[in-house]
């Protein structure tokens, strides 16, 4: 009888240059710095609509990263939470006439409840098995939404809830104006980033990283691994749900594709390209993937070939991703050879 999980040691990188923990001098300022960087985005990118997409997919990937990058769970079903966030927002506004803010709150809660249900079924399965189970359960949600066309609009997508003005108490913003919309969305994304940063810096953050680093050891330390994973899964679902809610507000439609396998895959691709387990990496990944897609699809209908190839190259040669590698380089420079 051997200990159940020996792969952790066997497969971990040999000798790291620095700690894998998400803390350090920079970490206290990572959320404000990220927001500062994002402030410049609409002026750098070719269009504001693209910039808003980067914000939304960036938040989606950051929420996903909470699970994949920090807890070490590879889910392929996060579209379920993104899509649920989007659908509940749209239905609450369009069908039930809720205020956008209330609708978004409801949407985030719904995504959390769904995450609890999917997590409860899937969290017991281990390793890559988990990826398959989450994928299949997300497919179930997809088909359910397709079927419930009375609520979701089915294949035609959900429409009829355009939000022209977003009110925060006494102030309201005209979000048909693309730049205003960008900053309104950034306000939500920024708040979410502050919260995520805080969670990562908390003892709970330490616990999930402990599970990622060595599940056997974490369990022996008295961590209820299953419950902690489930909590991380739900937290991740909440933030992905918020991203979905913002997506609905942004585009004023909810396509069925928001629940599709491809959308789940996007979270994985963006997180990995940017740098799993780094705070700002997923934004870098979202930016890189969306801009690449934007630029390539103007030149060739076969942009997916480039996307797939780039992704394979990242897995093979740059597993830390763009941002992760940059941070490693930086740390090496600071710490000397």
């Amino acid at each position, binding site marked *: *009888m051997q*200990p159940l999980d020996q792969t952790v040691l066997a497969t*971990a990188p040999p000798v790291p240059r620095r*700690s894998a923990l998400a803390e350090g001098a920079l970490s206290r300022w990572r959320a404000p710095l990220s927001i500062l960087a994002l402030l410049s985005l609409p002026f750098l990118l070719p269009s504001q609509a693209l910039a808003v997409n980067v914000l939304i997919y960036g938040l989606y990937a950051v929420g996903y990263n909470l699970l994949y990058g920090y807890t070490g769970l590879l889910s392929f079903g996060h579209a379920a939470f993104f899509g649920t966030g989007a659908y509940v927002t749209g239905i609450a506004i369009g069908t039930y006439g809720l205020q956008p803010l209330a609708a978004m709150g409801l949407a985030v809660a719904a995504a959390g409840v769904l995450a609890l249900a999917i997590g409860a079924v899937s969290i017991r399965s281990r390793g890559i098995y988990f990826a398959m189970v989450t994928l299949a359960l997300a497919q179930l949600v997809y088909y359910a939404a397709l079927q419930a066309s009375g609520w979701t609009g089915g294949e035609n997508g959900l429409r009829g809830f355009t939000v022209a003005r977003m009110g925060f108490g006494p102030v309201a913003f005209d979000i048909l104006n693309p730049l205003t919309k960008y900053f309104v969305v950034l306000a939500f994304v920024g708040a979410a980033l502050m919260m995520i940063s805080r969670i990562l810096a908390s003892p709970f953050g*330490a616990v999930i990283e402990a599970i990622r*680093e060595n599940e056997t*050891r974490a369990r*022996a330390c*008295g961590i209820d691994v299953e419950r902690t994973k489930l909590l991380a899964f739900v937290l991740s679902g909440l933030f992905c749900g918020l991203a979905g809610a913002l997506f609905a507000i942004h585009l004023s439609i909810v396509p069925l594709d928001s629940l599709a396998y491809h959308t789940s895959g996007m979270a994985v691709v963006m997180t990995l390209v940017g740098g799993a387990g780094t705070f700002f990496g997923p934004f870098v990944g979202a930016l890189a993937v969306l801009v690449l897609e934007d630029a390539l699809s103007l030149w060739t209908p076969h942009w997916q070939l480039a996307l797939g190839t780039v992704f394979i190259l990242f897995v093979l040669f740059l597993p830390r991703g763009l941002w992760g590698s940059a941070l490693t380089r930086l740390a090496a420079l600071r710490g000397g050879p």
Partner: protein
Amino acid sequence: MTGPVLQVENLGRRFGAFTALEGISATLGRERITAVIGPNGAGKSTFFNLLSGVLKPTSGSLRFGDQDLARLPQARFAHLGIARSFQITTVFPRLTAHENVRTALQARANRYDFWSRRDRLAGHSDRADALLESVGLASRRSRPAAALAHGEQRALEIAIALAADPKLLLLDEPTAGMGPEETKAMVALLHRLSDARAILLVEHKMKMILGLSQRILVLHHGRLIADGSPAEIQADREVRRVYLGQSSGYGHA
């Protein structure tokens, strides 16, 4: 030794048709250091896994103080004061030595705290340093665990286990893979640690066990065939037959 004792009664574990362990009864934790020995495949690891909650028994009972452990999730074992190390070094390889211990402390104290700043939690950092000091790793504080020497990693794993403030420390081959120097240091460490808590260990190095432990349990084919002081065990005919008498020692499968 004033801590609660671990009461094992008729403990057994089957894997499908295969019986790994059967009918083990013993009261553990009164002696400073107790060793579990037996040839490979005797059921030592299964026994340890049952005592630490990694596996659940298929028969028999397991009590710690007045707490029934048989159906308790593994995580609760650490909270009750039973901590363990593994045969294969099991630390957080990419964290520094200090972080390793601090993480274990946090795991114990504030598991579901989403809001405090972990690096500012009162006492954790100092306590981690004290634990590192106690296993002789103070100078390795800021090194990633994976960069430590093998013996140091074993010591670190013990420091992590100590973070749970255990009343009973289960160590699975603490000197596995160590050279004579490292082994000597580890033996000294175990002596020191047993001042404050009971230690139960699985070991292969017979000479070391005879000198170190007050009590020895011998497992063979999933059964407890002997239980007594080192002198009693050395004299036991059954033990000599299955174990000590063999020139190849414990190397056979």
